[in-house]
């Protein structure tokens, strides 16, 4: 069981999070647990608990939150957001936390892999003859990869390695 020293915590972290778009209402949380009870990810992995993440933020345990791989488990189903009786938009809070984590350099390898795929193919999988044959059978138009736009966006946001010229 870990000890958390509040004298080393960052008391401004919660204000920093609340300053991000969508995360403003984080202070409304009083840990009722309605989100935790309905979270489908929590069913699969009890470690993932929305109100636990909020508690860590409120306590100012910045490092623990941003370095946590749990941030990236969310499937963005918005159940927590729909459930919250206090209107804490937790999915939005999580976006803010993921952005802050990425800025602080905590970017999980699986995410990098996804960014690489986007950069390479303009989508999250490679389009091959297999997909296009299937599409022809269904009477759908052929797909071509157009990664240029994504490369531009990713470059602008400095996500992943620069596109090789």
């Amino acid at each position, binding site marked *: *069981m*870990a*000890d*958390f*020293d*509040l*004298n080393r915590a960052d*008391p401004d972290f*919660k*204000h920093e999070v609340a300053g991000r778009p969508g995360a403003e209402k984080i*202070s*409304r949380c*009083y*840990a009722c647990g309605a989100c935790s009870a309905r979270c489908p990810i929590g069913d699969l992995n009890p470690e993932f*608990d929305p*109100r*636990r993440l909020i*508690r*860590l933020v*409120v*306590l*100012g*345990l910045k490092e623990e939150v941003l370095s946590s791989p749990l941030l990236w488990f969310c499937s963005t189903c918005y159940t927590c957001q729909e459930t919250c009786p206090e209107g804490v938009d937790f999915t939005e809070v999580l976006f803010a936390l993921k952005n802050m984590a990425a800025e602080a350099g905590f970017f999980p390898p699986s995410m990098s892999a996804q960014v690489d795929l986007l950069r390479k193919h303009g989508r999250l999988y490679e389009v091959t003859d297999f997909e296009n044959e299937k599409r022809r059978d269904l009477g759908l138009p052929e797909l071509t990869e157009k990664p240029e736009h994504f490369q531009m966006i990713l470059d602008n946001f400095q996500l992943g390695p620069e596109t090789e010229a």
Partner: protein
Amino acid sequence: MTPKPRNIVLLPHNFPPAWGLAAQAAAEQIRTWKNVAETRIVTRWTPEEIGSTGPDDRFFLVGRAEPLADLTGPEVRQFPLDLSTLMPWMAGDPSINLLALIKAEIEAAELGQTGEPVSLSPYPQVLVLGHGAAAEATIARLNQAGLEAVWARTGHEVSSFDSQAHPNNEINSNLEILPCREPLGIQGFAGRFTVRIDTGDSIREVQAGAVIICGAEEKTNLVPEPLREMPVQTLSHFEAELFGGKPPALTGQGDRFKIAFVTGLGRATSTVGMRRILTSSIKLAAETQTDVYVLAPQIKVAEYGLERLYGRARDSGVTFIRLPETGPEILSDPNHRPGFKVFDPLIQGHLILCPDLIVWDESSAPRADLTRWAEACDLLSGSDRGLGPDNVLFLPALTNRRGIISLGPARGTDSGEIQTLEIETAVAEAQRFLTDGMEHPQVLWWTGLCSRCLTCLRVCPHGAVTFTDRPWFHPQACLACGICAAVCPGQAIDLIDFTDGQLKVRLDVLMARPQEAAPPQPRLVVFGCRRSAQIAMRSAPPPEKPVDLIFAPLPCGGRLDERLVLEVLGQGADGVMAAVCHPDNCRTQRGGLMADRGVSRMKTVIKSAGFDPRRLKFITLAPNMGVEFTRAVDAFTAELARLDADGA
């Protein structure tokens, strides 16, 4: 001689499938019973649908939880037959269960008796005991409600009600003020109390219809032992500096000053303390560069505006840490600043906090005078040593004695701040006992069986029993918990509608229900409080293993009769379970506790009668705990199966 009442069974036309029988078929079967005069099928519960009523009719309303308002009259007796204990998953043919339940209620009603109602003729005035802002606000509120007040004043300072202070105050002429050092006792019952007070030079008796104990303000500046080695200040002292224009010096060792407000070590947080802490912490967080922490066993928001203040505190960045009931662990390593270590269940880890300043809410320190008052007035006190049990149902102002109400400092807060909600509740509650009328007894007493052992007098938690040459049971104070009836060694006391005979006949009918399942399922008898377990059953999912469950409703856990436990075991029950309310959630305060003790005692008794004590189980439930009910039944049937396998 009065004619024998006619039993009429009213059946709803739309029987749910779970009952296993169409209304018509049920009516036909019930018609063959000797003690039923008539069965009627109703489509709507209206007087027109129900048809004629006679003066000696007893109506059994199958499937209804409440009596019908339209049918009320002195001559119409209604027996609503709430069938919530009839679960679709119960063993055997559901129609047999249904008919057994109806039959049990009719036979129990046949044995029903009532006592003579008591005339109340209450005293018109309300006695207010104590002094300070809470007492004065209570008197003002009583005046506003048009009620007559007598003030037994424990303090000496000048108040707004003193005629010298306000010679033109009209209220003063009607208010009788008595000096009071301490209350010495409260005799009587709601509506007619006699309060003995020590005036300092004599003892006086005051009559009152209700008593509101406001207590006495007493400033304690005591810092509890564990905090003395730390940088600590009392809340009053801190407030005086913070709001008095002389800002406290907030420079500490770290880069940011950390303040921890601490309340409720060994005593519940009060709403008054909570308001003071929230107000100070909001001001600090908004106006200074400090990190503010609030360490409290509970966040109390049950007063006007507190929830909003709590929200504002969170918005301004105040961090709340919940203390365990035992208080925080104190870190007193000489190489380290003193601090707190508290387990946080949410993040499953310990929080360590070494604040630069601790502000101690001294109003949450225990007080000796309230303990003396509680003893003198036969009042139960809670863990906060205020007058009133640790029970959510007795909040905000009720005590274990009807008509005696406690608030303000008497409830456990030293502050003079007025708690509006408590005062409103107290005045409304007092008013209930000041109107004349009749009160119907809840208890019957049989002279020939009584040995005058006084057990009833000693066990009654509500002060409802007195003794002359015989015990008297006073409906003005009785909460119908049935503890006296359950513990009476001579079986001389009966609780109306739950007499020994009625409980037995209900069980006999249900136990006689044939067991047809093959292989036979374990027969489990659940004695359950109708306020918790019976309601929990409505939402109970089916158990894992089928079980032949018989549910015997009790008015309260206190009525759990040890003799009935033996009886059902003798009649072939495989296990007996008592399911009552949680200890701090019992409507009668002591009922669940008595059931718990009864079960422990019975374990020894059934062992000597040749049964394994593990065949007896005690659980507590809230009304919304259907899932937990089934879980407990599953665990118990599994245990019974193990016992059977071991031949125990």
